[in-house]
C-alpha cells in the first residue's frame, strides 16, 4: 500500500513540475517582462570592483535584491550587452577597454543606441615574475619582438630573451597571459605591442589608418607557438605558475600583483616599475582605463540601477573602498566627468569610438 501511495505522489509531483514550468514560460512571455534585480556582465578585471559596489548597495538599502554579476570577459560581455533592450538582456557591461566602433554598431542594430559610458578608474596590465626570478628589465620593443606573431613581417623565431635583445639573459621566453576574449589581452596588444611596433617600424605606424588588418597582423597578433601561454580567465592560476616556474613572466591586472607582492616582483617596462603611483600618473606603459557601459533605457525600468551607479560614484575616490581593493583611482577631472555623466545621464557619442 505504501508503495502505491509513493508512486501516486511521485506522479503528482511530476505533473506539478510540468505545470510549473509551463506557468513560468507564460509569466515571462518571451523575455519582455520585468526584472527586479540588476544584471551585469563583462570584464574579469572590473568584476571584483562591481561586486564590492553591489554588496555596499544591498547592505545600505533594506529590501534590495542582489545584483547578478557575471565575469565573461569584455568581448564576451559586449555580445550579451548588445543583444537588445529588455529584461532578458544585461543592464551594465564591465569593460577593461573602450567599446569598439564595431561593437557599438552591433548594439545599435539591436536597438541599444543610448548608452552611458562611465570611466570608473584605471588598471595596469602588470608584468610580473617570481621573487627568485631573473629580475628582467624589459622595454616595449623587447616585448614586441618576443611576443608578436610576426615581428617585422617575419615569423617569430626568438627562443630566448637574448635572441630578442643581446643585453638580456639567455633564458627561454615563457609568458603566461590572458586569452583572446579578455580585455587585458586587448590592452596588452594596444598599450605594449603596438607601441613597440611603432617604435621600430615607423613606416607601418603611418599606414595604420589605411591598412588596419595588415597592421594588426604584423604588430598586435600574438605568437601561437608556445612561448605565449594562454592561461584562461583565471589570474590566480598565473600566480601559481610563476611560483613554480621562476623563469616565466605573467601578465595580469595590477590588483593581482598588489595582492601577491610577497611572492611576485613587478617587471619594469621602459625602466618604470608597475606601482600604484606610476600607473595613476600614466608613467607605466601598461596602464589602461576601466569602464562601465549602462543602457539608458534601463535606468528607469530596472529598480535600483540609478542607486547602483550612485554608489559606484561614491566608491571610486582615492580613499574609497575600491582603491583599497586594488583599483587605481582615475585623475580628478576624469572622475568629475564620469560623475557628471551619471548625473546628467549623458549618452555616448559614437563618433569618438575607434
Amino acid at each position, binding site marked *: 500500500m505504501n*508503495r*502505491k501511495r509513493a*508512486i501516486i505522489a*511521485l*506522479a503528482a*509531483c*511530476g*505533473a*506539478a*513540475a*510540468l505545470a*510549473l*514550468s509551463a506557468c*513560468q*514560460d507564460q*509569466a*515571462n*512571455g*518571451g*523575455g*519582455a517582462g520585468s*526584472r527586479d*534585480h540588476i*544584471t551585469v556582465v563583462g570584464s*574579469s578585471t572590473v*568584476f*571584483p570592483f*562591481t*561586486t*564590492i559596489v*553591489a*554588496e555596499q548597495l*544591498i*547592505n*545600505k*538599502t*533594506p*529590501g534590495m*535584491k*542582489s*545584483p*547578478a*554579476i*557575471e*565575469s565573461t570577459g569584455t568581448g564576451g560581455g559586449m555580445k550579451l550587452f548588445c543583444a537588445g533592450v529588455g*529584461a*532578458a538582456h544585461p543592464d551594465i557591461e564591465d569593460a577593461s577597454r573602450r567599446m569598439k566602433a564595431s561593437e557599438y554598431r552591433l548594439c545599435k542594430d539591436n536597438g541599444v543606441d543610448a548608452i552611458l559610458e562611465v570611466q570608473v578608474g584605471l588598471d595596469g596590465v602588470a608584468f610580473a615574475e617570481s621573487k627568485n626570478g631573473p629580475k628582467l628589465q624589459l622595454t616595449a620593443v623587447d616585448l614586441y619582438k618576443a611576443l608578436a606573431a610576426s615581428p617585422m613581417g617575419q615569423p617569430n623565431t626568438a627562443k630566448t630573451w637574448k635572441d630578442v635583445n643581446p643585453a638580456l639573459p639567455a633564458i627561454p621566453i615563457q609568458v603566461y597571459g590572458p586569452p583572446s576574449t579578455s580585455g587585458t589581452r586587448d590592452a596588452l596588444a594596444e598599450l605594449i605591442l603596438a607601441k613597440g611596433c611603432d617604435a621600430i617600424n615607423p613606416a607601418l605606424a603611418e599606414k595604420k589608418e589605411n591598412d588596419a588588418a595588415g597592421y594588426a597582423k604584423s604588430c598586435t597578433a600574438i605568437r601561437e607557438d608556445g612561448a605565449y601561454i594562454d592561461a584562461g*580567465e*583565471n*589570474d*590566480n592560476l598565473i600566480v601559481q605558475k610563476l611560483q613554480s616556474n621562476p623563469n616565466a613572466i605573467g601578465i595580469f591586472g595590477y*590588483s*593581482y600583483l598588489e*595582492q601577491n607582492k*610577497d611572492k611576485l616582483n613587478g617587471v619594469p617596462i621602459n625602466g618604470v616599475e608597475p606601482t600604484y603611483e606610476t600607473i595613476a600618473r600614466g608613467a607605466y606603459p601598461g596602464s589602461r582605463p576601466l569602464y562601465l557601459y549602462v543602457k539608458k533605457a534601463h535606468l528607469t525600468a530596472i529598480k535600483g540601477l540609478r542607486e547602483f551607479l550612485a554608489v559606484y560614484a561614491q566608491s571610486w575616490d582615492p580613499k574609497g*573602498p575600491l582603491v583599497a*581593493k*586594488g583599483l587605481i583611482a582615475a585623475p580628478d577631472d576624469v572622475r568629475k566627468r564620469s560623475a557628471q555623466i551619471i548625473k546628467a545621464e549623458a549618452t555616448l557619442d559614437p563618433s569618438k569610438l575607434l
Partner: protein
Amino acid sequence: MSDAPTLSGLVPGVATTAPAQPERAPTDWRTQSMQRRIRKRYASERRFRLLGLAAVVLSAGFLAVLLVTMVYNGASGFLQTRIALPVDFAHSGLLLTPAELRGPGADLALSTANIEGLTDSSARAAFGPDGDRWVSDGGWLRVRQALKHDPALLTARTTIWVPAADTLDVAAKRQGDPAAEAIVAKLQARHAISTGFNLPFLTASDSNDPTRAGIWGAFKGSLFTMLVTLLIAFPVGVLSALYLEEYAPRNRWTDLIEVSINNLAAVPSIIFGLLGLAVFLGTFGLPRSASIVGGLTLALMTMPVIVISGRNAIKGVPPSIRDAALGVGASPIQVVFHHVLPLALPGILTGTIIGMARALGETAPLLMIGMRAFIASPPARLTDPATVLPVQIFLWSDQIDRGFVEKTSAAIIVLLAFLLAMNGFAIYLRNKFETRW
C-alpha cells in the same frame, strides 16, 4: 597442495579420453615440469590478486589524499577570528532612538544611520590610528545586527565581538605576514581576540570579502536546481522506461529510440548547456542565471541515465510475476503499477541518485546559462538568479584574496557532505524497497 593429484579425475577431458587410450599413464604431478607449471599457475593467481589489491589501495589513496588536503585546508574555513570591539553608543552621535528601532521602520532607520563610521571610529579609539583596518570590512554589519537585536544598547557602552580583518584572520589561523602576526600577538595579550565557529559561513551568501563570504546562497541554489531536475527527469525518465519496456512494439523505430537514448547519456554536458541557452533562454525567454533554467538543463542530462537504469531494473523483474498477475485477471496497467514498478523501484532509484549526483557536481552547462554570477543574497524563487555549489567553488578559486583559499576547501567539504547525504538516502531507499526472491 595435498589434494591437487585427486583433481585429475575431475577434469572431464581426462575422464572421457581414458577408455580410448588405456595405456596412457596417469599424470605424474611430481615431475619437475609439472611442478613448475603448477607454481606458475599459483604465481599468476597471486599476481592478479596483488594487482587488484594495488588498484584498490591506489584509488583509496587518492581519495584519502583528497579528503585529507580538503579537511586540512578547509577546516579553518569553518572558524572565524573575532575581535572584542568596545562601542560607546551613548556618545556615538547616532540619530537613533530605541523606540525607533522597536517600530516597523527599524531597517530603514538603521540603514540611514552611519554605523560604518561609528565602527571605524570605535576601532580607532580602541586599537590606535590603524584600528579600523583590523576589523573586517563587514564588521559594522555585526554592530548593526547587535543593535537591531537589542535596541537598549543605544544608551549604553558595550563590547561587541566583530569579525577580524582578512589579514588578521589568516595570521591568527596559520602563517600570515609578520605585521599581521604582531597585531594578533598584541590583541592576544589584551584578550581581545578569539576564534570560534564561523556560523555566517553556513548562513551567508557570496561576498568579495572572505570574512563575510558564506555558502548558503549557493547551497540553496543547488537545492532549487536539484529539485527542478528531479521533478522533471524522474517522472519523464520512469514513464519512458516503462513504456519502452512494457508497451512499445519491437521494431526499427524503438531500436532507433534506444540507440538515441544511449547516445544522449554519453553526450558531453557542455552541449546540454548550449541547448539550454538556445531553447530555455532563447526560445522560451526564461531569465538568465535562474535555478529553474539550470534545473531544466540538468534534467535533460539526467533523463537518459534514469531511462537506461530504469529499463534494466524493469527487465530484472521476473516474467513469472507478470504472468501470475495476468493469470489472476489483472489488466496490463495494473500489472505495471501494482507489481512491475514497485519491484523495479530500488534499481530505478539507484540510477536516479547516480544521475542526480552527477548533476549536482556539474558546472559546464551551468556556465553557459549564466549561473556563474556573483550574487550576494540567496535566491527566494526559482526564477531568481542563483549559483550552485560547484560553481561557487570555481568562483572562489579565482578570487584574489588569500583568505578565499580556505573558504574554497570548506565549500568543497560542504559539497562532499551534500553528496554523501544524497548517496546515503539512496542506499536507505534501496534497502527499504528491496525484495529478494
